[in-house]
């Protein structure tokens, strides 16, 4: 007899029901299948009404994050065999409102992404013309921020963060790590502008350093580390400002 596995999936259709329910599906178990394969199987063969996001199925587009047994995961990289023969519970990412089934509302994240000004900022008149070629950046300077540039915006870190769950005004791990990515880029001069958001009440000081964002991160970005380093930077700024009010503060 064919081996099977059960998936218990969160269902919510806003125009048909007020509250979410769970629906259980029994599907063939294959040891090289990931949770996303299982969900695709359900969609194609059993129940066409199940909605979720996915695309690249190779862990780089960031679409398919879901809670798998209560833990935020990229479902394209989460293998059934690690749970078999137990039932697997699949829910939309925690901390976000649910749009439909496994699809969360990500407006808040997109807003925060834009808010931290994730682009290279140069001081007035210091932009290098294209004709003069690239900015020089040594491999060591690249290595300074490279880790923080690997974020795929999958939002698993937000789903892992209890602070964000309790208070959605928190700028959050991925956005702060991205700000840090630009702050540490040798080509950038915009740190001070980003500090308005980063060092605000909703920024780094909301973080209590639970550290689960870095555990959840599938790309080893280490947002928790980025936030703590930003705290150190901000604190140094504050002392410099205090001790040297005439302009000791960097920039």
């Amino acid at each position, binding site marked *: 007899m064919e081996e099977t596995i059960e998936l218990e999936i969160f269902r919510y259709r806003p125009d048909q029901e007020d509250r979410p329910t769970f629906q259980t599906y029994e599907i063939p178990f294959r040891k090289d299948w990931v949770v996303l394969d299982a969900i695709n199987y359900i969609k194609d063969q059993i129940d066409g009404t199940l909605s979720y996001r996915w695309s690249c199925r190779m862990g780089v587009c960031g679409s398919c994050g879901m809670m798998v047994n209560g833990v935020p995961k990229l479902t394209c990289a989460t293998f059934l065999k690690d749970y078999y023969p137990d039932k697997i519970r699949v829910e939309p990412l925690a901390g976000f409102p649910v749009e439909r*089934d496994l699809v969360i509302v990500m407006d808040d994240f997109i807003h925060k992404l834009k808010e931290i000004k994730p682009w290279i900022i140069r001081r007035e008149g210091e932009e290098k013309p294209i004709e003069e*070629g690239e900015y020089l950046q040594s491999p060591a300077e690249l290595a300074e921020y490279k880790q923080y540039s690997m974020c795929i*915006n999958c939002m698993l870190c937000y789903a892992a963060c209890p602070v964000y769950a309790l208070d959605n005004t928190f700028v959050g791990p991925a956005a702060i790590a991205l700000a840090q990515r630009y702050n540490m880029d040798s080509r950038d001069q915009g740190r001070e502008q980003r500090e308005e958001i980063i060092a605000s009440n909703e920024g780094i000081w909301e973080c209590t350093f639970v550290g689960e964002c870095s555990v959840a991160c599938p790309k080893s970005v280490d947002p928790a580390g980025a936030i703590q380093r930003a705290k150190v930077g901000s604190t140094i700024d504050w002392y410099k400002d205090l001790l040297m009010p005439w302009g000791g503060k960097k920039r």
Partner: protein
Amino acid sequence: MVKSEVHKCDVVIVGGGGAGLRAAIAIGQTNPALKVALVSKVYPMRSHTVSAEGGAAAVTKENDSFDDHCMDTIGGSDWLADQDVVEFFVKQAPAEMIQLEHWGCPWSREPSGKIAVRPFGGMKIERTWYAADKTGFHMLHALYQTSLKYDNLINYDEWFATKILIENGRCQGVTALELRSGQLRVIAAKAVILCTGGAGRVFPFTTNGAIKTGDGMAMAYRVGVPLKDMEFVQYHPTGLPGTGILITEAARGEGGILVNKDGYRYLQDYDLGKPLDVNDPLHPVKKTMELGPRDRLSQAFMKELEKGRVLSGPYGEYVHLDLRHLGEKKIDKKIPFVRELSTKYAGIDPVYDPIPVRPVAHYFMGGVDTNIRTATRLPGLFAAGEVASVTINGANRLGSNSLTELLVFGAQSGQAATEFAIEHPDLDFTALEKQGADEQERITKNFIRKNGGYERVATLRQEMTKTMESGAGIYRSEKSLKETCDKLAELRDRFSNVMIEDRSLAFNTELTSALELDFMLDVAQAIAHSALARTESRGSHQRTDYPKRNDERFLSHSLVFRTDGAPRIEYKDVTITRWPPAERVYGR
């Protein structure tokens, strides 16, 4: 009748990948007063540009020249690229790449701090810029993040474009389904740019993400714009069996080798030159062996398969991509994603074991017919990126030209659309609103409130991909293509009985899958019929019944037009300027 909400803007860009974002920024830079709508069925950073790995080509080093890049590209295209376009592309490329560097793309560097380059298949000189082996990912995120600073850009994320709207003989916008609410909206615009990418998902085994369903190609095709050179589909020689996950050409650029089941470097048997020892300081030799062009490498695999010299596993036949001699340090530094993907998805750590690989459908050289300024023959409609055929890729694209193409022609389309929008300020909102209502009714009647359907979307889709592989894959013949054409006609027929179980309006992905399949069936038919009509072998289009290139009859682009019956095929000349057609030579 329910009226459709009309959103007004100056330029609408459909598709938020590399080309779409570059177009949006181009408008933001030059005409910040223009209101730009970026309509994308996914959030822009999910677009498939994200999966590109190896790099982007541009002439920036002392030992390189524009002519060399042109020659490599034209030879690689089997002389089906338009040479004036190639020259334009090659000359624009460096500035575009430097621009992206200024926008923060984390390019890999030389110790001096200058941009580093790596060799790539079919390129005589190393000119491929790279960000380790996540080049597309970094380019897309740099573009997306940069685009956020332009306030004239409005993102319509998760809006699924369904139709191009024409009034008074020119393109005046699109209709799009807002996925969250399930409502159809009209986005009225003075110019429309299609940047929706290719349609790899018409094949069962592809590197392409789920979203690559040829929406833009089909939308243009349906309003009478021809698709060009659709018979040319590139198979990438190294995908993981089963999933089709791409293992970048950079793995070979850095010195990886392909071996058959006997451990033999079989490419030497297919006119791709003689192998050097992997420890030879001159290995890998450019345009030779593993650094031959993708079409020839994928074809060589098929020949090995015929000879029974490949390996076999649960997901079909494969050969080995061996990287072990590169060592852990180099693999981790230059191609870490290759290691991550093979370890995670194939259970193979390339530091210790060779990676199983096989050819996999990867890229469409063909697409919406445009001129050098990305304009289609429908006034007001532009196209750039994989959705378009401009053409620099001809019968076979060289690895690392497509990422650069996004930038060069993305920017070009932004400029061209801006000019057009300024010259054509009038829009007929009443008529557009009416068209929106008609489109809403079509979708309601044919899909969301349709009764009596019995064909599953997934079943039809699987049958389509299967027939595309069997009849229009790497090697084709009249017999196989006719079977595929017939099967596709049958599927088109059966599609009218499609079943939608999901009656909810909110984020109805059964509906979008059906709309995507509808688009894909059009694209698949365009491919199969174009391939049937081209009775020669050129680049990626290999006919077993016509194994030779025939310049006398076919040194021309195919144009396929949609009709109520079988598609109509026409041809137009290739532009030849300084490089007359010759034999493609690799490794000698």
